[in-house]
């Protein structure tokens, strides 16, 4: 049992566990200490100097973000001197930050802008000393504007510690300190896997998603183009945050409606692609698990940042990888083949836009030749949730009032299994439901596999199906992958049974609900609420197993034949190759 600490904050008694910081302790008594650099996901870097507080008996002011509350401390979080120091520090930061709020990707959603507004700085006594530094847009997934960086270090922490990618670092020192790809190369040449967690954690507009909306507007204006859209599972429970809906509100129907009003001629759902992924992947699993074809564990492949990470750092496990394309890619290829054929539309004119919680999807649509399996680029543009929210606002759509609509069912009907793809463990849970059916001929009696749910970094478990034990593992946050792989490699080297039969990996903490393209301000609380929105939809739905999706069944009957059949392989599967970095 940890020790309890009693102290006083602004005259209010507070009791916390030993080790809790002054910042967190203050929240318990409804005292908000401002900070720019501390993010709840990350260790304190103590970089901004805004959260200083006064502790009775010490001359120094201490940082609330990284100072643990000690017994009997008497803390003052606001007094005229503290506020003056904070105002001065904000003034300093603003003097090195471009005055470009009106054209900035984070305007109205910027932590620095908000802080400056709260402190009401009306004039500055310092000259502007913004350096002239170029943008790095080379990834076409995230845009890095080092001029807007306040060097809080969050992006670097998330890139190094949470994601274990080590693409970003600080270069130079003092006033010249700037963020960059390590070694001052282009981000696209670095180990960056485009997960976008840097942008999700950036307090300012220094790292934002690469904006593809212009291209989409252009196509929507083009009378020749047949624009179709698809929305990913995690988008529906997060987009509402941009319109002040309660976190986790499921806005699927309104999003369909908004897309149609913007001019999309067909609106699909990536959940359909998720169901289809499960059909293919579950069959792949049965082939390996029951029939001994190829190696175990089978590892999921629907997360593009994970695929990129694996190709860069862990290419020895390519044989373990599911060859399934991601759901968005499957919907893309079918839109330009199956859908085009059935509706007699020239696939050359179809323009597929995917709305994703993700910045890495922008890279995925171009990652290999299999991404053009329809004969055309299967998905033309991938937008993030944030970009869609902006487009809806530009379109003058009253998102609160717009009536809900249905998708175009051919590639839009979906089951709860597809929906839960958006949360960590969801792919595993959906696959287990169908694998159970494939092994036993029956759906599982309980649909929920709770061992796969929740925000624990690594989730392990086993289930028994028809007397056979299936060992599974789920990891999210790329930094957690290493441990799983080490176990698998060890067993392989020793010639032992694999520790797992099936492994799910999602690059972003929380899975896609916490994706790098989701509305800003992500915390574990938000991740949990967004995931809850998905699980609710799954629970309330008519169909909860991918193989029960009548439109998926219809697709196999009318077009694909069978899972892992020739046509499926051609349209729905891909290959991998090692892509080592720093080898140029």
């Amino acid at each position, binding site marked *: 049992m940890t020790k309890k600490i009693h102290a006083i904050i602004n005259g209010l008694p507070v009791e916390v566990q030993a080790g809790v910081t002054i910042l967190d302790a203050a929240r318990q008594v409804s005292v908000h200490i401002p900070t720019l650099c501390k993010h709840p996901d990350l260790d*304190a*870097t*103590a*970089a*901004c*100097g*805004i959260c*200083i507080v006064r502790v009775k008996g010490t001359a*120094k*002011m201490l*940082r609330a*973000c*990284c*100072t*643990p509350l000690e017994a009997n401390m008497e803390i003052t979080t606001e007094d005229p*001197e503290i506020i*003056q*120091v*904070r105002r*001065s*520090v904000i003034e*300093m*930061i603003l*003097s*090195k930050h471009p005055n470009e709020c009106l054209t900035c990707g984070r305007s109205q959603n910027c932590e620095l802008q908000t802080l400056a507004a709260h402190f009401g700085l009306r004039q500055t*006594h*310092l*000259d502007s*000393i913004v350096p002239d530094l170029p943008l790095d847009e080379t990834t076409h997934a995230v845009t890095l504007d080092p001029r807007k960086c*306040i*060097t809080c*270090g969050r992006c670097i922490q998330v890139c190094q510690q949470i994601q274990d990618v080590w693409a970003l*670092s*600080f270069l*130079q*020192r*003092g*006033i*010249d*300190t700037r963020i960059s790809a390590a070694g001052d190369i282009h981000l696209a040449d670095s180990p960056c896997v485009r997960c976008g967690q840097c942008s999700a954690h950036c307090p300012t507009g220094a790292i934002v998603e690469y904006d593809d909306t212009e291209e989409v507007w252009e196509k929507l204006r083009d009378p020749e183009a047949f624009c179709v859209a698809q929305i990913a599972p995690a988008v529906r429970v997060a987009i509402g945050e941009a319109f002040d809906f309660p976190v986790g509100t499921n806005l699927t129907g309104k999003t369909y409606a908004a897309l149609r009003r913007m001019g999309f001629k067909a609106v699909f759902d990536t959940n359909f692609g998720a169901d289809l992924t499960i059909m293919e992947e579950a069959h792949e699993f049965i082939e390996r698990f029951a029939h001994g074809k190829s190696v175990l564990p089978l590892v999921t492949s629907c997360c593009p940042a994970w695929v990129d990470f694996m190709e860069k750092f862990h290419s020895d496990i390519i044989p373990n990888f599911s060859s399934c394309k991601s759901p968005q890619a499957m919907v893309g290829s079918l839109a330009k083949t199956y859908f085009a054929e059935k509706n007699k539309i020239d696939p050359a004119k179809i323009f597929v836009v995917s709305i994703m919680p993700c910045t890495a999807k922008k890279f995925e649509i171009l990652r290999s030749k299999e991404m053009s399996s329809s004969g055309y680029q299967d998905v033309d543009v991938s937008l993030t949730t944030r970009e869609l929210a902006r487009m809806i606002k530009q379109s003058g759509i009253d998102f609160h009032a717009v009536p809900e609509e249905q998708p175009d069912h051919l590639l839009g009907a979906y089951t709860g299994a597809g929906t839960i793809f958006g949360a960590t463990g969801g792919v595993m849970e959906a696959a287990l439901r169908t694998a159970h059916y494939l092994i036993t001929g029956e759906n599982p009696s309980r649909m929920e596999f709770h061992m796969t749910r929740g925000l624990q970094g690594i989730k392990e478990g086993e289930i028994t199906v028809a007397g056979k034990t299936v060992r599974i593992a789920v990891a999210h946050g790329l930094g957690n992958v290493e441990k799983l792989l080490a176990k698998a490699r060890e067993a392989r080297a020793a010639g032992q049974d694999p520790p797992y039969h099936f492994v799910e990996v999602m690059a972003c903490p929380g899975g896609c609900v916490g994706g790098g393209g989701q509305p800003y301000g992500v915390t574990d609380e938000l991740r949990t609420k967004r995931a809850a929105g998905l699980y609710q939809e799954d629970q309330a739905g008519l169909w909860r197993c991918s193989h029960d999706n009548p439109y998926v069944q219809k697709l196999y009957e009318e077009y694909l034949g069978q899972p892992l059949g020739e046509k499926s392989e051609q349209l729905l599967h891909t290959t991998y190759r090692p892509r080592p970095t720093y080898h140029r």
Partner: protein
Amino acid sequence: MGRLTLQDLDARQGVQIQTFDKPWIKVGMSTCGLAAGADAVFNALVETIQSHSLDWRVTRTGCAGMCSMEPLVEFRVPGESPVMYGEMTPELARELVTQYADKHSLPDDHRVPGLAELAQAAGDPPRTGPRQYRIVMRNCGVIDPENIDEYIDRGGYQALKKVLSSMTPEQVIEELKTSGLRGRGGAGFPVWSKWKMTRASIGDEHFIICNGDEGDPGAYMDRSVLEGDPHAVVEGMIIGGYVIGAQTGFFYIRAEYPLAIERIEKAIKQARAAGLLGSNILGANFSFNIEVRLGAGAFVCGEETALIASVEGKRGTPSPRPPYPSVRGLWKQPTMINNVETLANITQVLLHGGRWFAGIGSGKSTGTKVFAVTGKVKYSGLVEIPMGMTLREVVEEICGGTASGGPIKAVQTGGPSGGLIPADKLDTPITYEHLQQLGSIMGSGGMIVMDETDSVVELSRFYLGFCVDESCGKCAPCRIGGTQILRLLNNIADGKGKEEDLVTIRRMAHAMQKASLCGLGQTAPNPILSALRYYEHEFRERLVPAHK
């Protein structure tokens, strides 16, 4: 030399007066001496002695302190008082040898009175020499730093022997507590307390690090000790390792100190060969090794947490404390970081006792402090004085006042973290507390003397510019605040400043002090604030007149 045993050290107990039966010439060959041409002098001496077929001894030694007179050469003849020569040249060196060989007399020119006696006086226990008091520098300029035998002859490794054979770690800590020894890196934290806390911390392993990242402009005390008496620091570290339960120690020395690095590496090698490092040191159940790590040129790496990051191979930036290194330091293990001068004091405290040490100095500032006195002073160099001595005694009496003979304007102590002390306050005793009251600090030992020709505005600009260059860039107040204040200051220096700029400077400096993460940012405004405190008129003289 083979492995030493306790008995070997017993046999060499007590400080041996360096005995010799033939003429012995010592050449000061630390960085200061070498820069002044000591190498050529050394070679000239050797050649001349050989050409005259003389059986004399010529050895290298460290810096005796009077750097302005380098190259320094000490001439010792059996039965006679040693004579120190300054500003030696190869020609003079040849003449010296020839004259003594031919006539048994020594030239009168270039003699530096008192210095040889001072070096010689650093005996057992160190006693007051002429005003200076040498504990830390007791061997500097006396022994050959590359020869462990000369160190042992002067009582070297006796403290280690004493500790390992008769003292528990707790007893060592108790002795340090009695001594009142405080950290010499600048902050003056009680040494015993740091040792005790690190010892008490739980970890897989404990580490000790010697902070040799001396970086204050004009300060080179630590370099001279590392170059002049490396074994004293090594021995201090071994004892520290024993006390806190470490098996590995690191010397973190800035790469700009190649000679210090070379001599420490040699000392480590010699100590290892003598069995003073390695397994079961002096037969005790204690094993300890030392490695050297080089700093890559960042001033901030003298800050403990940044230093640790640097040793770990990471970008050298500070991290928040707590956790303090004594709890969670190098590779997340309990780590004790001591400055060079601190470690050089350890052996003497333990050999002569904490009470003896506490009797030197003044109040809570016990023992001596080494200062590097530079600037407009007649004799620049290193002085070691008992704390409590006044600034005036150091600057005017030991160092001869200003070079021009004119009045002193101010003395700057504490380097870029310190402040100015105006001439009318020179009778202040040098203690941690007194200097702080004046708005400066003890710091690591830089002392810059200014005369009336020096501009306070320019000095402020210099120090702030230094901190701006050396800011690691991690925290906003230091990174941006320093740059902005410097811009305003440059404006004032250029005659373009306005009244309100002084207000902004003070406000930003205050924010930097309060909101910077580490000592660099917190103290970087000190020089300008103390300059404004005592010499605001000099800044005002340069402002744009309010009404035209």
